[in-house]
């Protein structure tokens, strides 16, 4: 890379900074185009200003098989509003221009249709740092690792409680930036309690990799964020923020602040 910093370098800094402060990073998910493209840019900006270290910009897709009702509803709204793949890139570009750190969360077919190499290139030029692909396993990457490596952005895969040791090792080896650790067997959605499987999976995964581990699925409160932060390097919050977004920017700011306090071990929420 001839540029000063690649997306991967910046992503690494997110986690080294948090670690230096002896805390986990807070990663906030919201879909592009919900409620509008401009509106989503505003909400994501709010999340970054209120303490998210990194945002995941969701790319709306017609068949989100790993998402529960809250995120399904939001991406349906975005798609009915006419959101396009290039709008997601525009949202990332706007956030990055303001100094925000963003990765994209997308199902695989929109990337496949766009062209994996073109998508990696255009996301890198927009200032995006990486791509989380919930329905792509490294076995089917078919040039995606090369495309992301060439543009300096991070391919981020998922491990799940059902993953075998061998698959955890292989998935970690294919990932850069951080590894997405699914806390539970199920779709996205806020849950009352963080399942015990999250901690067990983090412990299993640490034996195979030095990558930072972000834990997602089900976190909704400062208390839960604090609990997850005690064993993970990143706390990922999606559905709870999307629910908050229904009530506007102030609600997103309020929840993000609570979660940011949570990942620092200070929380007033449950």
């Amino acid at each position, binding site marked *: 890379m001839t540029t000063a910093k690649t997306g991967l370098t910046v992503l690494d800094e997110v986690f080294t900074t948090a670690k230096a402060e002896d805390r986990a990073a807070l990663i906030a998910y919201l879909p592009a185009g919900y409620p509008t493209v401009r509106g989503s840019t505003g909400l994501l900006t709010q999340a970054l200003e209120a303490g998210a270290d990194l945002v995941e910009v969701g790319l709306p897709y017609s068949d989100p098989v790993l998402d529960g009702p809250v995120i399904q509803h939001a991406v349906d709204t975005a798609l009915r509003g006419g959101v396009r793949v290039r709008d997601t890139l525009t949202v990332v570009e706007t956030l990055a221009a303001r100094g925000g750190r963003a990765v994209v969360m997308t199902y695989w*077919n929109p990337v496949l249709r766009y062209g994996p190499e073109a998508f990696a290139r255009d996301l890198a030029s927009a200032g995006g740092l990486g791509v989380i692909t919930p329905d792509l396993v490294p076995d*089917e990457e078919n040039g995606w690792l090369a495309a992301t490596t060439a543009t300096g952005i991070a391919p981020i895969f998922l491990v*799940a*409680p059902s993953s075998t040791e061998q698959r955890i090792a292989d998935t970690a080896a294919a990932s850069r930036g951080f590894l997405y650790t699914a806390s539970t067997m199920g779709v996205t959605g806020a849950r009352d309690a963080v399942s015990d499987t999250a901690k067990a999976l983090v412990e299993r995964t640490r034996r195979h990799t030095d990558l930072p581990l972000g834990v997602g699925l089900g976190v909704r409160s400062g208390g839960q964020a604090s609990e997850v932060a005690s064993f993970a390097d990143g706390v990922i919050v999606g559905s709870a923020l999307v629910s908050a977004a229904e009530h506007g920017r102030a609600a997103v700011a309020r929840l993000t602040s609570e979660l940011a306090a949570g990942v620092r071990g200070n929380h007033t929420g449950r």
Partner: protein
Amino acid sequence: MATAPGGLPTASDGLSEHGHDPDATGHFGRYGGRFMPEALIAAVDEVAAEYDKARHDPEFLAELDRLQRDYAGRPSPVTDARRLSEHAGGARILLKREDLNHTGSHKINNVLGQALLTQRMGKTRVIAETGAGQHGVATATAAALLGLDCMVYMGEVDTERQALNVARMRLLGAEVVPVTTGSRTLKDALNEAYRDWVATVGHTHYVLGTAAGPHPFPMMVRDFHRVIGLEARAQVLERYDRLPDAVVACVGGGSNAIGIFHPFLDDSAVRLVGCEAAGDGVDTGRHAASIGGGTPGALHGALTYLLQDEDGQTIESHSISAGLDYPGVGPEHSFLHDIGRAEYVPVTDTEAMDAFRLLCRTEGIIPAIESAHAVAGAVRLGRELGPDATILVNLSGRGDKDVDTAARWFDVVDAEALPTDPPAQDQPEATGEREL
């Protein structure tokens, strides 16, 4: 291994090695594979490993053959449709009668196999998606037979147009969940089934209803349906001392088609013709012809031809037939299309309903609207090939479930034609203008 009446091949023969399996992770050429959340990979690995053991286990094979013979009623007969032939250029039209199976369609072949596999895996609950309701009914049936809990996901639109099958599933003890997300049809039922499975995989097997989805489903479901083609090939050879010139089947996901095509793959002189649902016409954009009007992409676990827009968003399909109303197709069909071994042709709603009426009136058989697409394709092909031709058609299901749809169609669109006998050799005006 059991011997069927007449020394015909049996269901277990469908599971034997045949040299047309995909690679170890399920790729047919570039198609297929496993485009799935990691959380479900362990589950599909478990299914693949269990299927591999089962297909070589004499006990499993004997039990499958026993159920297929004594419970489902195999083998299904081949009927020479002599009066239909008069409307098909005089070609001999042979109907493989999967409509006579228990539960009324080919779907039981796959479901019996997967339900036995569920027991082998020690799981106690099955889930299924269904469009027309045939797969849901078959799954509910097998679940009742083997004492498994059963939940069926069905698009809300389909629960309305296939109300009879909803009632059948409930009578059989299954819970039917109307799916209200997205287009509220088959693709959304699949999404909901996956969402259920990812949370319940410890005790639940997902009985995928067609030869699509992630590996090993396209291969395994195909193998459970290969008995259709194995029987038919032997029946035609035995009765006519020759192979058919063409084998015709409807293609939604494509399980009945791959089942009857597959044993003919190495018979290079036999044309394999898949009839896709063209709805209002492929050029109108309101259709379900994934190969004829789609492009390759990843959906529901496999790389295959799909109806998608330029952003890779799935486009809603349209067909009068709920069972063909799906925007994707099994990956092996995509492969067979690309290598030119099978040809895929469009059949519109109007052509299918004309063929539906024609088969009712000439043969006394009310077909499923899905299967009527194949009959339409065969009639067209017969006119092209002429009286020396022999065409084998997979009559994949019976039309009891479609009586309401058909009555509405003929009342609204063709009320005057309903009471009269269709004139022989005079169908082209009434049917579509497309040539095969």
